[in-house]
């Protein structure tokens, strides 16, 4: 494998990495989700995190944001711990993570992106609302500003979330599957948005599911499967050869062993009870 594509490589331009991950291990109960991960994600790029289900992609984002406890290791954002860099980071969670029946409008949700800058107690004012409206405009949702969020389609909800991230005006964005379950219009809108962000020198780290579009949408890729498999520019890492090998064989031995362990689990995925 190309040495450039291996774990821990600094970006070629030598600039300070946007995200630096060291020795990161996260387990859920006793299940390793991320294991001994070292990686460095370059600033100013669109980075796709790609990997199978359960490979720890979302967990990586959450660990970086301090939303899940880490067993070992650390994550630094532009050289400092996240807690000190909150203002530089925007987050787009998975769409299912919130209650869309909540009594609030699209504009209101976008305004929430500005709360970080306001700090405790201060309320958003006219300026914040104007900023939020501008962000909605950027994702083509200006007409829906006053709409209750449950009355939006899935793609529109996703765009509201993106507008909220825009409002955060961050240097680095973490996005959890921004393209999941959206219509073609939204997909195009998101893509344009990502490119604008890159042109402005911002960094986007997005969990991505669709292998077909990785090369078209992103310029860097992190192949994740509990451990870091490879990371680097799409051109050198996401090669035909790598993909061929990636998709080449079907796993048998381990999955059998694992299945034997985990038979009879009808509720394994239901959070509690």
């Amino acid at each position: 494998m190309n040495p450039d594509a291996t774990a821990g490589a600094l970006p070629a331009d030598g600039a300070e990495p946007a995200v630096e991950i060291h020795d990161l291990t996260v387990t859920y109960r006793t299940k390793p989700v991320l294991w001994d991960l070292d990686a460095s994600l370059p600033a100013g790029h669109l980075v796709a995190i790609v990997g199978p289900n359960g490979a720890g992609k979302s967990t990586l984002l959450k660990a970086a944001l301090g939303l899940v406890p880490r067993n070992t290791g650390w994550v630094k954002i532009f050289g400092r711990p996240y807690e000190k860099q909150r203002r530089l980071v925007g987050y787009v969670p998975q769409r299912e993570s919130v209650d869309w029946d909540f009594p609030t409008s699209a504009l209101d949700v976008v305004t929430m992106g500005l709360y970080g800058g306001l700090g405790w107690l201060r309320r958003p004012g006219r300026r914040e609302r104007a900023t939020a409206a501008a962000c909605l405009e950027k994702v083509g949702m200006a007409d829906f500003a006053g709409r209750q969020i449950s009355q939006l389609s899935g793609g529109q909800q996703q765009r509201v979330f993106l507008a909220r991230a825009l409002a955060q005006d961050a240097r680095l964005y973490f996005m959890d599957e921004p393209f999941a379950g959206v219509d073609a219009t939204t997909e195009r809108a998101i893509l344009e948005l990502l490119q604008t962000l890159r042109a402005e020198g911002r960094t986007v780290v997005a969990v991505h599911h669709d292998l077909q579009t990785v090369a078209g949408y992103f310029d860097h890729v992190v192949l994740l499967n509990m451990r870091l498999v490879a990371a680097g520019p799409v051109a050198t890492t996401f090669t035909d050869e790598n993909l061929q090998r990636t998709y080449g064989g079907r796993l048998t031995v381990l999955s059998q062993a694992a299945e034997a362990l985990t038979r009879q689990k009808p509720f394994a995925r239901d959070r509690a009870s």
Partner: protein
Amino acid sequence: MSPAVAILLVGGAVAASCALLGTFLVLRRLALLGDAISHSVLPGIAIAFLLTGTRNTLPMLAGAGALGVLTVFLVEALGRSRRVREDASIGLVFPALFSIGVILVSRFAYHVDLDLDCVLYGEIAYAPWDLLTLGGRELGPRALWVSGGILLANLVLVIALYKELKLGTFDPGLAAALGFSPVLVHYVLMSAVSVTVVGSFESVGAILVVAMLVVPPAAASLLTERLSRMLVLAVLLGLASTAGGYGVARLLDCSIAGAMAAVAGLLFLIAFLFSPSQGLVARLLRRRRLRARLAGQLLMLHLRESGAPRPRADLERRFGWDPATLDRVLRRLRAEGLVAAENGGLRLTAGGGLALREAGLDQVAHRD
């Protein structure tokens, strides 16, 4: 101050406090927390009695307040363990605490009339005469000071932390990422709930508090799509229930708190049935209109297919609708000029063809 005014003010203050906090409880799926606290404070008053040997209000309130906080803490901790959901954790915590209370009273205060109704829960009917005296001066009903103070504190809390409460309720993940600790916000809210609930129990009794925490916010959620308006509406509905309930209670000479809860329920029922956007009637009407439009379009497609005017009987056979339904559909189509009678049959008008095109149905062939 006349007794009626005092009761309305006290009831209104309690209703407004409860509606403010209840809105967030309802959105956080913790609507039954008030009821849980109303049971789980028993060991608090038992312990307070055992420690002080009196049934005075202050120690009872302190004991009940402590248990209220313990209740929300335990419910939260159980939920956080992710082993049971919030509803089950409420159902685990309050029976256990109440049972401890019953055992304490049965063992150590066997001969004392120590129960929640007689030592903790107040009665709003008596509020006008329970005056606060300070340095020999009477300063109006004590319950008004208590509930007014609680209302003021809650208003300050909700206004000051509106943004944090909203974000923490809607999207705890983002709240945490932005540095607004949702856990801290949750504990602030829950402490406010337990203080409000216990303090209001002491002024007006349990049932009114439990009802006002849930019913007006739930009704408000059917009437608006904005959190700020939901808060205001919930407060207004709470006040309306207070006033209406007092009227009913005076009219029928029955329990004031019970009547207030019943009126709140009536207001909820009205919202449930007649809310313009969410109400049952509106939903049914919408569904009917949709079905009627669909039926009209089906009929029009059929007329377009066939080209020539079709007799009514033919249509009746073709769609298998009963004559009344067909009549209704035809009446509407003819009134809108989409279908016209011709030679004892029916045909599509030009306007009807246009309507079909506008509905995006011009390419659709109506198949059997």
